[in-house]
């Protein structure tokens, strides 16, 4: 069974960490990742950039509505996510629109640039990618 573990915290708080605190936290997390990876149990790992860089594509209309900011509805739940390599935001929105056509109706896709991505097989630095979460 695969489990996705989603990370939540107060962005203002993380933003107030010193660089040293942030770096130290990433080192501690990497130690956890290393053990999981050695056991062959680790899938992709991503750190998303701040929600201020987020765009949301709202479904449920003929032409989906693109709005600034993160997904903020509490009556809908996170059901899954994609990681897609895109040249720019337009390309990411285009992907989300394709997804909306394939899965029409209510809901939304939140588009968040990814700041750190490790694919779980090796730890080579990758080009920045964009996450599209439903």
């Amino acid at each position: 069974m695969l489990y996705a573990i989603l990370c939540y915290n107060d962005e203002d708080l993380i933003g107030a960490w010193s660089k040293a605190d942030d770096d130290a936290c990433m080192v501690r997390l990497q130690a956890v990742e290393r053990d999981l990876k050695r056991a062959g149990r680790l899938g992709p790992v991503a750190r998303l950039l701040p929600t201020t860089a987020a765009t949301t594509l709202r479904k449920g209309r003929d032409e989906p509505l693109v709005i600034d900011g993160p997904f903020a509805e509490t009556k809908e739940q996170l059901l899954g996510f994609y990681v897609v390599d895109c040249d720019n935001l337009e390309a990411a929105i285009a992907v989300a629109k394709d997804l909306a056509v394939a899965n029409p109706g209510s809901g939304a896709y939140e588009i968040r640039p990814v700041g750190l991505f490790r694919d779980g097989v090796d730890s080579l630095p990758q080009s920045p990618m964009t996450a599209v979460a439903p």
Partner: protein
Amino acid sequence: MTDRAWIDAAITAARPQAVGALLRYFRDLDIAEESFQDACLRAMRNWHLNGPPRDPTAWLIMVGRNAGIDGTRRRAKQTALPDEAQISDLEDAETALVERLDGNQYRDDVLRLLFICCHPDLPATQQIALALRIVSGLSVKQIARAFLVGESAMEQRITRAKARVAGADTPFETPGAVERSERVAAVSAMIYLVFNEGYSAGDDSARAGLCDEAVRLARLLLRLFQTEPEIMGLTALMLLQHARSGARFDAAGEIVLLDDQDRTQWNAAMIAEGLALIDKAMRHRRPGPYQVQAAIAALHARAAKPQDTDWVEINALYLALERLQPSPVVTLNRAVAVSRTEGPQAALELIEPLAERLSGYFHFFGVKGALLLQLGREREARGAFDQAIALANTAAEAAHIRIHLDRLTRDARAAGAKA
């Protein structure tokens, strides 16, 4: 993370909202700051015993409000005057829990707090110092170090700035739409001043921290006004410029020009965030000076190698910026793009009419010298570089120009030896 570290981070994160709310209750900056200070002391005693509260900001506002009311009552007794008027709106103080859900109130609180630091009577350096003290909560010592002045001098400067602000009419009523966007513009300019104070400091780490602080304030502002393309532009601009900070100076502290920078040293996460923000902003089709400058920075960031840079587009963007915000400095920057697309002669012709207005500007003579050098007019280039050195703002700027001069001298000697 130690208890102390996360409590510090929580207090820093809560500060703008908490002090902003306390300022609205007490309508007095000193009382607001003192009560916040009081709340912080209690947080330090309390939180590591009882664990963090669910909403540290709301906790600090509640405790700070009570501390402020106690303090005001105590002072009122001492002066034997019932000074309830000091506490303006008891009613809205009591609805703090309801307010927690009301983002708009917080939004105007934080904006007001930022806005009072931008009082037009305050010179730029005092605006920055005041914002760093009141909004960011840096200590006077930290701010003094960033400005390279003594602690007592900075203390005085901040006290004077505060007195000036207190004497002015602080606008406490909820702003209208026009008023609000004027405040946003003033606050954006102030945040960019904080950034530039850090950016122009070069590789001095105490001051370079100001860039991070400016980015943090911009993100805060953007979270409050998520659909404002100019705040997206401002945030993107600062991120894209700040992303290069690791490559702007060599080991000896000398300036490394954009073309010569090791682009692998650029911060990829900051660039990704900056590009995402400028992409978002452009979708609004409401261009402004920050967005255009960010778009220029984005073209540099997107070029993996210097020769990939789209100078034609950069020239077009500077033309747009000249229309939005006419200034000789913008034209000077465009001249650099023109030198890449049309050659140094065309660029020189573009900047010659600026000579009078930029006669005290280091970069004017730096650019002029470089263009003259490209045209082989070495004697005139030397003259321009001499003037640049005399106007240099930092040791690194002077050293950078001296490299050109030394090379000219060396070449002249070599030519002399050959002859």
